[in-house]
């Protein structure tokens, strides 16, 4: 009876001594020591050894060949044979990883994949389709598109090539400021419809929602509308004129007062509809789009009306339970002489913004002068924290339509762990990894080099990117000369200190450590500057938010280095330059600690303070906002706004390693609670969609920067 060989995937094939001989010859050729008689002899000896067996596993045959070769004069051939076998093993492993990941999605048991993004509900079909596409895109990019060194650095946890599930497989970019003004004024084509310039604020808002949905499906990061109050104000005026005309037609006595009131109602309703639309949207990326509205600098009555409507709509909440809306992120600009002080004309809007922040966490604030000083000009961040630099086109400052090409982040704590306290070695490793990161970032850039406008009409031919190209035009000119940014991110300065200098004193309390972390950031910043000169591209240094990364890097490093106190023992790494979430300092001191970093890391940043419920003490919240005005460009206040629908408790739920639960009645049923937390720059509802383990650990350890409750 003929022997059967059982292969690794379980399939069966007839035993063939010729194939053994071929494999040995291959190894001989690689060593340049070909001897056909010897190959034949060894193959036959192996076959003889297996005589009488009905079936034999492939591993067993290979082991026999190895042993025979090692016993012969062909020890180098044996080595080559083993290496070849190892490579094949790896390759097999790689292709089966794809299968395993898909399996994890199908069986819904790969929690890392399923909870990677707090904004994706992996239980629903469209999101699963997106995740499946992501698995394949990531696999293909890693095996076919990216340089081997970059893939190894990514897999080894030296750096993180963000959003591999989208790019470089797809020629997509990260986040952008949509040129809403240009699109609304000049009209555009979307799907089957030609959209003309709107004639009222209600139409303008509904068209805005459509644009956001489209844009968000063509990029993988955040979609921001910069200065939305100023952009949409003309449509409030059009609505007003319409209502005036109606009043005149029907001979209404107080035409102006009537028109104003109708206009205010229409505006509120329009923004309420926009809020609902954005929170119910589901883009082809399988998620509610990450949308940010920047507003606050307008001073006309139309602009102020929009500011007030945005805030009042947010305060009102969504649905029956008046749940806090997670999107869009609201970013309110403060400016001296406009709204910062009681004597300023828009001070009432600032007070309303404070009230809204105390109830709904958003808005975060942009401090006008600081934004200009740190980033070169005023603009709202793209997505949650990515800032463009100043850029001119035909002598004019331009922001709208610009974008970020993506991020690669460095795992600084890992380099610090490898350096074992040796500073020279640390910097050597840093420079080596900066080179790798450059190589990685250039793959992002190069992927877009020969892309044609037709791949994303909404972005490139219909105006979202600010310039309308023809379908066959190359899009690359939109990204050159600093028009787009491309960002190097970093994570875990807090852990770097402990890894390099030991877990003895906190960086906050130690001047030497403070100097060290500044030096590291300054070093990266200088490298970026060099890349900028070298390429003419808008490289920028970005303080990585690391929603998913905070646990990924730490997990890899704890595997390789064990649990290092103050470094890998917490299960997460600290966000960029942020102060350790466990360090108890008041928000003023925290601002002082963090304020020196945004200027060094101007491609992206945000600073936070953790607060108790301040709904009764807006003046105190205002004190911190005012203090932040001269410290940092961009500030967010985290306040507890959780709600239990069972017992009516509002305030802060207990965060346990298992989830969130009402401190009053113990309720933790996600259908009967509303829990809102800051995940990265965005809010999330961790009751409905759990955070990843590292993020849950980090949230668990956050200390309030102002709780004076008695112990």
């Amino acid at each position, binding site marked *: 009876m003929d022997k059967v060989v059982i292969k690794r995937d379980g399939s069966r094939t007839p035993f063939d001594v010729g194939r053994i001989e071929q494999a040995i010859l291959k190894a001989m050729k690689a060593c340049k020591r070909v001897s056909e008689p010897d190959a034949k002899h060894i193959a036959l000896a192996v076959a003889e050894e297996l005589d009488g067996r009905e079936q034999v596993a492939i591993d067993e045959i290979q082991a026999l060949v190895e042993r025979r070769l090692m016993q012969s004069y062909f020890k180098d051939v044996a080595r080559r044979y083993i290496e070849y076998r190892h490579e094949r093993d790896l390759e097999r492993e790689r292709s089966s990883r794809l299968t395993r990941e898909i399996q994890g999605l199908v069986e819904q048991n790969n929690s890392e994949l399923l909870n990677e993004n707090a904004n994706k509900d992996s239980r629903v079909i469209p999101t699963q389709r997106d995740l499946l596409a992501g698995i394949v895109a990531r696999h293909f990019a890693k095996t076919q598109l990216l340089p081997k060194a970059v893939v190894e650095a990514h897999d080894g946890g030296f750096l993180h090539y963000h959003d591999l599930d989208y790019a470089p497989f797809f020629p997509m970019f990260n986040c952008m400021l949509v040129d809403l003004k240009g699109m609304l004024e000049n009209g555009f084509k979307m799907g089957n419809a030609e959209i003309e310039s709107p004639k009222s604020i209600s139409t303008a808002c509904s068209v805005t929602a459509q644009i956001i949905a489209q844009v968000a499906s063509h990029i993988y990061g955040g979609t921001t509308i910069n200065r939305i109050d100023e952009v949409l104000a003309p449509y409030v005026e059009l609505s007003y004129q319409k209502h005036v005309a109606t009043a005149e037609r029907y001979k209404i006595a107080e035409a102006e007062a009537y028109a104003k009131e109708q206009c205010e109602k229409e505006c509120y309703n329009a923004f309420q509809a926009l809020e609902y639309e954005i929170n119910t949207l589901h883009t082809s990326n399988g998620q509610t789009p990450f949308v940010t509205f920047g507003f606050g600098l307008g001073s006309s009555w139309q602009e102020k009306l929009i500011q007030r409507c945005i805030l009042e709509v947010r305060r009102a909440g969504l649905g029956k339970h008046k749940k806090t809306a997670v999107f869009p992120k609201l970013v309110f600009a403060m400016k001296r002489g406009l709204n910062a002080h009681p004597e300023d004309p828009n001070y009432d809007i600032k007070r309303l913004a404070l009230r809204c922040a105390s109830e709904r966490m958003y808005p975060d604030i942009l401090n006008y002068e600081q934004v200009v000083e740190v980033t070169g000009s005023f603009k709202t961040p793209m997505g949650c924290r990515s800032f463009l630099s100043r850029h001119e086109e035909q002598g004019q400052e331009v922001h709208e339509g610009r974008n970020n090409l993506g991020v690669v982040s460095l795992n600084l704590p890992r380099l610090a762990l490898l350096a074992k306290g040796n500073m020279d070695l640390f910097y050597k490793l840093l420079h080596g990894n900066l080179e790798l990161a450059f190589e990685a970032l250039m793959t992002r850039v190069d992927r877009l080099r020969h892309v044609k406008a037709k791949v994303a009409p909404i972005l490139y031919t219909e105006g979202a990117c600010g310039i309308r190209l023809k379908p066959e035009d190359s899009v690359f000119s939109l990204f050159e000369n600093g028009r787009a940014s491309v960002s190097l991110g970093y994570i875990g300065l807090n852990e770097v200190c402990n890894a390099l200098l030991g877990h003895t004193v906190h960086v906050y309390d130690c001047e030497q450590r403070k100097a060290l972390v500044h030096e590291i950031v300054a070093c990266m910043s200088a490298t970026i500057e060099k890349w900028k000169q070298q390429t003419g591209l808008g490289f920028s240094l970005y303080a990585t938010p690391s929603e998913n990364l905070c646990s990924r890097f730490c997990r890899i490093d704890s595997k390789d280095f064990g649990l290092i106190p103050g470094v890998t023992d917490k299960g997460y790494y600290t966000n960029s330059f942020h102060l350790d979430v466990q360090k108890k300092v*008041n928000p*003023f001191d925290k601002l002082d600690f963090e304020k020196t970093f945004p200027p060094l890391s101007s491609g992206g940043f945000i600073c936070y303070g953790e*607060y*108790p419920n*301040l709904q*009764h*003490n807006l*003046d*105190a*919240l205002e*004190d*911190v906002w005012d*203090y932040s005005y001269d410290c940092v460009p961009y500030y967010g206040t985290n306040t507890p706004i959780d709600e239990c629908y069972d017992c009516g*408790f*509002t*305030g802060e739920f207990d965060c346990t390693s298992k989830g969130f639960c009402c401190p009053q009645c113990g309720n933790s049923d996600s259908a009967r609670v509303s829990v809102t937390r800051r995940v990265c720059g965005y809010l999330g509802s961790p009751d409905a969609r759990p955070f990843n383990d590292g993020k849950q650990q980090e949230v668990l350890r956050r200390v309030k920067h*102002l*709780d*004076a*409750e*008695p*112990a």
Partner: protein
Amino acid sequence: MRILQYHPVDVINGPGTRCSVFVSGCEHRCPDCFNKASWSFKKGEAYSEQIKQRILCDLGDQRIRKRGLSLSGGDPLHPRNLAAVTDLVEAVKTQYPDKDIWCWTGYRLEQLEGAQLTLLDCLDVLVDGRFEAEFKDARLCWRGSSNQRIIALSQRYANEPYSCTIADISKRQTRQTQ
């Protein structure tokens, strides 16, 4: 007097950003008190010139500006605490006439006598009365139960929606006796 806790930056106990002092010692022993640790007169650090100077210094901080001082506990108006509290409050009022002082006590205003009454001249707001669990309401600001009153002793807080004045109280009492 001993001080159980001192918070140089506080936003929970009174409006604006404040310094707050939790004194030790209270005999009201309200059930469900939020700060039972403060009942004993023996806990915490003894009040001293040094502590007083630190509080004065923090109140005058130009970097983190404070609206005023909050006194809680414990009961700052307990006879055993009165001398030290008066010393602190007078020093604050002398040095910073524009900063306001809030004080929480378990006594009712009507029960106060002697030095307790004298002290009121230096306070801007007195939150009075025991904590009564049956009147507990988490939505209230600056007090735990609705039987407690936020009494504006100076003009500064006389028109707040949450405050009442001594005139309001005596008017109400006259009405009740009629």
